[in-house]
């Protein structure tokens, strides 16, 4: 695939495009969060890009809670993937937002399909999308505290809606040794294998 979109982006936004890379047809551009919507709008509207088909919007938590500051400036990397049906090319645009009150402008005016995706990113990572018409959780429930895909969310913390029954549950585990994994819910995290 040609690197046309990346070249157009660099020409249009200059230093606001922080980094571009291209690997086996995957064109990626990292942009400043302040120009997030502008870049999305350009990729959508520019006739040579014409990425009118919204594929996905999600995020990555880049921090390592053992070593990094949870409020680090570029903790959450939000990305959007867009495809051009007309030109048959695809681009991934990324931006990084701070771990301390992560905020980003919504791209719903550009691609209305981003609505539920942004809700999911808010639900899982706690990134607030400014201008979102319905900024509720989408997968977990309103009673849920925290954001489960953040690296500092404890892997074994459940927040049951129904109180668990009392009593011991000393049934034999349905897993056998040759059936995948041990029943390790009560084991400490480093004892898991």
């Amino acid at each position, binding site marked *: 695939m040609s690197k046309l979109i990346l070249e157009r982006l660099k020409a249009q936004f200059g230093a606001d495009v922080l980094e571009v890379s291209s690997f086996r047809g995957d064109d990626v551009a990292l942009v400043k969060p302040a120009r997030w919507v502008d870049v999305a709008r350009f990729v959508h509207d520019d006739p040579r890009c014409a990425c009118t088909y919204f594929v996905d919007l999600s995020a990555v938590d880049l921090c390592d809670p053992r070593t990094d500051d949870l409020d680090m400036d570029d903790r959450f990397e939000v990305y959007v993937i867009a495809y051009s049906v007309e030109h048959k090319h695809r681009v991934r645009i990324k931006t990084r937002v701070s771990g301390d009150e992560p905020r980003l402008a919504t791209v719903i005016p550009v691609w209305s399909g981003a609505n539920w995706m942004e809700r999911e990113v808010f639900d899982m990572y706690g990134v607030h999308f400014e201008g979102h018409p319905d900024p509720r959780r989408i*997968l977990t429930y309103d009673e849920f505290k925290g954001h*489960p895909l953040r690296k500092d969310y404890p892997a074994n913390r459940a927040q049951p809606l129904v109180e668990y029954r009392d009593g011991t*549950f000393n*049934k034999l585990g349905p897993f056998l040794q040759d059936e995948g994994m041990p029943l390790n819910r009560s084991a400490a995290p480093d004892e898991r294998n």
Partner: protein
Amino acid sequence: MADLSKLETRTIGGGESGFVTTKFEALLGWARKYSLFQYPFATACCGMEFFSTASPRYDIARFGAEAPRFSPRQSDVLWVVGTISQRQAPVLRRVYEQMTEPKWVIAFGTCASCGGFYDNYATVPGIDKIIPVDVFIPGCPPRPEAVLDGLMLLQDKIGRCDRTPETVKNTLLAEGADEALEKLYQIRMKP
């Protein structure tokens, strides 16, 4: 319910026809176990295996359990077929509470039994944390034969008026499997 050891059925010859004495619970259990109306609460891939069990090749109708009722008030057995998420738990409990007595619950597959490999924020680690379970059917998903084993185990338990939870055993296990299971159980119970 009644103690198992006290249930006895005797046939007494008397004249040409003879007659039978039995305990009321035993008679009731015998009547109930061959007419189980089921509520399939199918949430995940185990559902496919449930359809297979219900369809003619395996034919769950042979066990008097062919009638699915999609109203909890008309059903006797709640089949929990698949993963139950935390968000779904209130629904499951409500369905269980709406069923009329007598009612039984079968945990179909590993996810329903213990959460399976979903060891995370989203999944209930076994439906027995929410509602009482009579029979656990392990397997990911269990084969229809295992499901029928589970159904027959439930029928057996109904006939005996026994409500203790039981797990379908793998009858093809090699020698020493009991020790292996016990060891696994010890690993799980480690503090």
